[in-house]
């Protein structure tokens, strides 16, 4: 199957941007300028990029503490994201959110949460409101497979299906919740079947192929947008780094080098780089580097918030 060059460029650009941003975070982290736990998506970018390529600016996104990739893929503002990680005044929430709670109404990314599973039900209400006001927009909610252990997933899926709400559920199944393998948390790893128990059409995309993810998401988004009720996608993926923080984690001993190596071999970033001509790639890479450099500079230069601002926005 061949893919049109514009799509490849667009996807590569997003993949590259996210990867490089997170690599920069890794590089900078030891300086302690980012005093916030970071949960990186290095290795998982294809899910965010493949899915979000099908979303428009009016579509709404909810996610988790592992939120950099989806925020950027949804068209997020890198300057303000980096400033937020630095805890600066020009950050998305002026230092009140940090990496774990990225949100930006302008980008349609409403909120992320550090309590596993807790944005799932928010998607219900948001989707209900969109439909009530006759909007064509849909809600897309990202979560790890760990969230499917939680009762709230089931309550959410049941209600979404009951009310036929316009929601795309995207499970990033990287098989681990911190260091717990999903097999140690479920009698059988049948995530799609769990969604189907609520009559939510579900698809599993194995292997991390960004085109397969994008195609499955395209179909699902179209169905949801057409009023067909919720859909569920399980995207198999793998994070390359430790659960939290910038480090590698093979030395910890909870997973094998071979497992990780097989996923690194399938890196979509490298794959798409290979599909692009050198010229396009160099142009994109340069743009990405320039954007990152600007964002780092923006974050560095932004002042810390004044003490009195701490009291703002507790209530509206």
């Amino acid at each position, binding site marked *: 199957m061949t893919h049109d060059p514009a799509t490849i460029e667009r996807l590569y650009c997003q993949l590259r941007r996210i990867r490089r941003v997170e690599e920069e975070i890794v590089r900078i982290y030891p300086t302690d300028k980012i005093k916030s736990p970071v949960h990186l998506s290095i290795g998982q970018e294809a899910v965010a990029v493949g899915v979000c390529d099908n979303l428009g600016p009016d579509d709404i996104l909810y996610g988790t503490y592992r939120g950099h990739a989806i925020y950027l893929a949804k068209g997020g503002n890198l300057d303000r994201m980096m400033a937020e990680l630095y805890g600066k005044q020009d950050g998305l929430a002026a230092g009140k959110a940090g990496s774990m709670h990225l949100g930006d109404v302008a980008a349609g990314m409403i909120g992320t949460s550090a309590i596993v599973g807790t944005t799932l039900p928010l998607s*219900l209400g948001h989707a209900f*409101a969109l439909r009530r006001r006759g909007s064509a927009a849909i809600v897309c909610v990202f979560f790890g497979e760990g969230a499917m252990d939680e*009762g709230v997933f089931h309550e*959410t899926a049941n*209600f979404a299906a009951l009310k036929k709400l316009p929601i795309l559920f995207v499970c990033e199944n990287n098989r681990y919740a911190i260091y717990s393998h999903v097999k140690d948390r479920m009698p059988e790893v049948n995530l799609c079947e769990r969604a189907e128990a609520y009559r939510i059409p579900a698809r599993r995309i194995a292997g991390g192929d960004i085109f397969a993810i994008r195609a499955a998401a395209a179909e699902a988004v179209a169905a949801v947008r057409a009023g067909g009720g919720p859909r569920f996608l399980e995207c198999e993926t793998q994070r390359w780094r430790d659960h939290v923080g910038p480090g590698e984690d093979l030395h910890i001993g909870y997973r094998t080098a071979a497992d990780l190596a097989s996923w690194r071999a399938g890196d979509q970033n490298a794959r798409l780089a290979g599909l692009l001509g050198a010229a396009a790639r160099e142009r994109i890479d340069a743009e990405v580097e320039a954007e990152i450099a600007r964002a780092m500079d923006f974050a560095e230069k932004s002042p810390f918030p004044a003490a009195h601002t701490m009291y703002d926005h*507790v209530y509206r």
Partner: protein
Amino acid sequence: MSTGRRGGRELSYAQAIGEAIRQEMERDAGVFVYGLGVDDPKGMYGTTLDLHRVFGADRCFDTPLAEDAMTGFGVGAAIAGMRPIHVHQRMDFLMLCMNQLVNMAAKQSYMSNGAVHVPLVVRAIIGRSWGQGAQHSQAFHSYFMHVPGLKVLAPSTPHDAKGCMIAAIRDDNPVIVMEHRMLYGNRGIVPEAPYAARFGQARVLAEGDDVTIVAISHMVVEALRARPLLAEIGLSAEIVDPVSLAPLDVGTIAESVAKTGRLAVVDTSWAACGAGAEIVAAVHERLQGRRAFSALRLGYEPTPCPTTRPLEDVYYPSAKSIAAKVAALAGRAPGDWQARDIVAREIAEFRGPF
């Protein structure tokens, strides 16, 4: 906010709540009501009766039993610009959705630096009535008072029930409205035109010079019954109903205590870390160096709620036990005087099954 006076129209507490919701639903198409049983033939003790018929099934609807996700649903709808009202038949059930209330609803405005807000109303009914026992009688207002980002209202009169409900619906923040099953039948003057209670505004229900009794929710009724008992022994009690628990009107309470020199808080929950602890501590801080006062906290006895009536009668503060303990606070020796029993009609006349 005017005090109800003779001459106006009378409604029950339940009717006042129902009227407030109906009027707000008429005013604002974004207001909707949901929760277990809100559209059933009993309509949550009448407070939501027929709203689904009048406003349509998408503005008043039943839900699965799923307090956690249904609260999150409300948070999401509120973020998206609607004004959901989530109804719980018993406040005890809120223990199933603490995460969404405390970790999510309370924090969205702050974590977004004001970009989003959560105009969600949570109606929670305290269930004393008919042998409700340990799991259907609890009140958790202190939990919500503890958390920045939440507001708490606890109306005790039909007038305030309407005003509080409207205030809660119009407010842009998550508001817990604590209702009490034993207040539902109480009647009082309720203006027909919509009006909103003021957050952080206590109400002095009766003036007095010797002791300030701050009473919460249904305990307001018992405190008002205790007042004539205290008068019999020459103690004039000022009765203050905070109405708004968060924000709390410490000023009004403290001024009253500055006058009387005595503070009794009668709560609808346990004393430890409760609203009474907060009120005593806040008044202490406010009056220190100015006026010494003696204080007393009354509330549920420190046990789970038993079901049998003779133990329930010990468990809950009553006019008699309030009067007796306030008298003791004012230095009357226990032997001096025995408070009369005053029948709490709403309790004595209540018939089950629920």
